[in-house]
């Protein structure tokens, strides 16, 4: 698969809005059949990148090829082979669920009859068949999202772009969306998504980049990123309020890295239980102890910082 | 003012006010176009007066009223414009705006969590509508006096009458708003308003209508309002204005009563 021609290829890609540089020279390659993720805090440049890939935002610099074509010159031809699920659902509230799919299919030159069949299949796929003739407005957030995803599939796209596909959904709805996206991937559809949910990235992405301030700060598979930027396990220690700093000094040298937060201390270590034993041996008695596997969230926070972005 | 512009477009009166919570902020900021919308609101009846009263008036000439009094067409139309703009302003404020705030902005759900009661919200809304409407009415009366369509004394008497008209339609609008199901219903209301505007003795004396239509027309609130204000501004004699005033007072009372009952039920659900 690695030898296949990349579907999306960006070199030194830049997007500026006036003086503000949203995307600051990134290199990305998305290969056929993979699920590729853009991770990053708000304002990292993920959505700007997605809009450029969606051929609705001309790059300000660098090189971008999608399906081997130039997004500025061949926008419609590329978009004919893309499916886009935007961050906010922009369904037509005056149409029914089914009509939202059939009218959209017409934009791809799909004949009416085929569009009807296709809509029926897709409604089945996203489990909305029973609501086919309902209006959009009374649907739940999860249903609207599924309908938007179905709409993005109406043209049998080769690449599906998903901008924060599960933001704002309840756990059941999220899992259903993940499961459907996984099936698409199994069928060979290339997925490109942005998210700031680490569990989502770990669930769905074969490969991902972490963006911060318009740049790519890390790249790899979720597993590789964890190995590279974190330890195997993390120990979370809580001491009595306001005494973290005092204890932290005594923990120096334990594990690879010690991070002191207002409410707890994190030890990044290879073996959590061994580290807990060492802490106890030092005569320290934390109020609570949690040993867990290192997650993408640790990588993410380590790379992009803990400060609130907005 | 509904006017001869189709009522579907009436929504322009209420639409900006759908963002009324924002208007509060704008009051401080004073930079939004909303202010221009507010300030220019009085312009519409004046434009109608010039177009219909003077422009078409040049074709019509003078009118002889039933009492034998002869008035210019502008003098005949002006009080009707005042009454209908008081109606439109009050209805737009209390229906469109109220509906938007209740249904979409969920503004009131926030307010009823405080000790404020639904009825007090309604009165507050009505009060704001009335202040605005009264300023428009006063400005219009100044124009009428300036054009020599009425005297200063009569204008001063017509002012409270216009305020009463505003209250009656405001109360009616609040009651109506509690029955609105969707924005589509506003199309219907706009149509009803426009029909009233055309056939309430606004442009021709009701005496010109066929007898049956005339009786129906005389029962409508806008006809009573036009009759009241026109009587004052042309200086009609007699006591029929008492009937108009009583009618409008009863309408105000019934409107408020219905509105407060229904609002309680809609909000505390």
């Amino acid at each position: 698969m690695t030898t296949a021609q990349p579907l999306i290829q960006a070199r030194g890609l830049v997007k500026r809005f006036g003086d503000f540089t949203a995307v600051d020279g990134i290199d990305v390659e998305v290969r056929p059949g993979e699920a590729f993720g853009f991770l990053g805090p708000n304002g990292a440049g993920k959505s700007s990148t997605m809009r450029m890939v969606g051929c609705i935002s001309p790059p300000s610099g660098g090189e971008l090829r999608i399906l081997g074509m130039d997004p500025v010159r061949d926008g419609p031809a590329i978009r004919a082979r893309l499916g886009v699920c935007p961050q906010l659902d922009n369904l037509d509230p005056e149409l029914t669920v089914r009509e939202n799919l059939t009218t959209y299919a017409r934009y791809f030159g799909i004949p009416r009859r085929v569009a009807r069949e296709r809509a029926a299949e897709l409604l089945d796929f996203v489990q909305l068949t029973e609501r086919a003739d309902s209006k959009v407005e009374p649907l739940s957030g999860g249903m609207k999202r599924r309908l938007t995803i179905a709409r993005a599939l109406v043209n049998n796209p080769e690449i599906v772009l998903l901008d924060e596909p599960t933001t704002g959904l309840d756990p059941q709805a999220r899992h259903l969306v993940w499961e459907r996206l996984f099936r698409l991937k199994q069928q060979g559809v290339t997925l490109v998504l942005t998210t700031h949910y680490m569990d989502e990235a770990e669930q769905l992405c074969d490969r991902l980049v972490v963006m911060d301030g318009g740049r790519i700060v890390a790249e790899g598979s979720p597993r590789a990123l964890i190995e590279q930027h974190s330890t195997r396990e993390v120990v979370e220690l809580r001491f009595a309020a306001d005494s973290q700093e005092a204890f932290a000094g005594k923990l120096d040298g334990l594990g690879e890295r010690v991070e002191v937060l207002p409410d707890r201390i994190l030890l990044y270590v290879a073996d959590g239980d061994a580290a807990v034993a060492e802490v106890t041996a030092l005569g320290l008695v934390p109020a609570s102890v949690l040993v867990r596997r290192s997650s993408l969230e640790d990588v993410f926070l380590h790379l992009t910082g803990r400060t609130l972005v907005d | 003012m509904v006017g001869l512009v189709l009522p579907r477009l009436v929504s322009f009166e209420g639409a900006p006010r759908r963002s009324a919570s924002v208007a509060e902020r704008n009051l401080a900021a004073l930079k939004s176009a909303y202010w221009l919308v507010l300030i220019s609101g009085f312009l519409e009846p004046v434009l109608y007066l010039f177009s219909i009263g003077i422009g078409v008036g040049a074709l019509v000439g003078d009118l002889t009223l039933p009492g034998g009094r002869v008035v210019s067409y502008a003098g005949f139309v002006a009080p009707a414009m005042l009454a209908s703009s008081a109606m439109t302003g009050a209805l737009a404020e209390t229906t469109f705006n109220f509906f938007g705030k209740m249904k979409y902005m969920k503004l009131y759900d926030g307010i009823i969590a405080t000790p404020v009661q639904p009825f007090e919200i309604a009165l507050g809304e009505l009060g704001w509508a009335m202040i605005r409407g009264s300023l428009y009415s006063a400005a219009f009366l100044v124009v009428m006096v300036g054009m020599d369509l009425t005297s200063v004394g009569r204008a001063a008497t017509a002012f409270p009458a216009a305020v009463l008209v505003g209250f009656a339609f405001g109360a009616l609008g609040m009651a109506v708003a509690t029955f609105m199901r969707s924005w589509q219903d506003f199309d219907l209301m706009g149509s009803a308003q426009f029909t009233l505007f055309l056939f309430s003795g606004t442009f021709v004396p009701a005496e010109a209508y066929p007898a049956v239509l005339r009786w129906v027309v005389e029962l409508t609130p806008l006809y009573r309002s036009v009759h009241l204000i026109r009587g004052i501004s042309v200086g009609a004699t007699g006591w029929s204005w008492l009937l108009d005033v009583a009618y409008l007072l009863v309408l105000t009372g019934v409107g408020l009563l219905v509105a407060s009952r229904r609002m309680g039920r809609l909000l505390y659900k």
Partner: protein
Amino acid sequence: MVDVSVAGRVRPALPRVPALAVLAHYLVGYRRTWRAGVFSSFLLPVLTVVGFGFGVGAYVDQGVGGLRYLDWLVPGLIASTAMQVAIGESTWPVLSNFRWIKTYFAQSAAPLRVGDILAGHLAFVLFRAFTSTAAFLLVTALFGAVRSPWAVAVLPVVLLLSLAVAAPTFAFSAWAPSDSYLALLFRFAVIPMTLFAGVFFPVESLPSGLRQLAYATPLWHGVDLCRAATLGVAPQWSVPGHLLYLAAWAIAGWLLARRAFRRELVV
């Protein structure tokens, strides 16, 4: 199960006339909402004819230039109905497609160009204005207010007039920072045009400065053409002049609208 496998993929072609697919979208929605619009865009102009044409007309003893006031008024109302429907459909719906329901953004993710999105919506607006005025024309003909077979020429005229007012309104609505601006458009442009551009009384009775302003409005040119058509008389101004003037509004409006749409959609 959806077949999205690469082998089974039928590659969609681009739509032959993409703007038609966009128009189809609006027509599907309109199938459901047209009833609400019938009242405002058709019955109410008819009521205006009754209340104003017959009502006030009865008091206009001399007529206008020797014509019955009703006959003189009706073509003006036809033109102003077309204008109002065209502008009404080009204001809140356009703003909403950008800011509230974001239909344009959904469309721009499909293989449509900005021009297709704009042309499809404009075509729907023209459809609305055209059907409203055609029905209105028919009813007024039944009232006996149409006096010449030339009246059929009203139909292409209202199409051109609608385009001349809708295209620049699209540009305005795309640019408008808030819906207050749309209210201002009605207050300072649409309503004054309706009232002073020769619909209800002859423009000639306006004072000179205002008269020039009235001549500059697209509505007056539409009114004059419609009046000439339904009455079967020569217009006050040359027909090619009228048509060119309206076409200039349409073309300038289209260019402005396309620029405004591009500014919003391609960033």
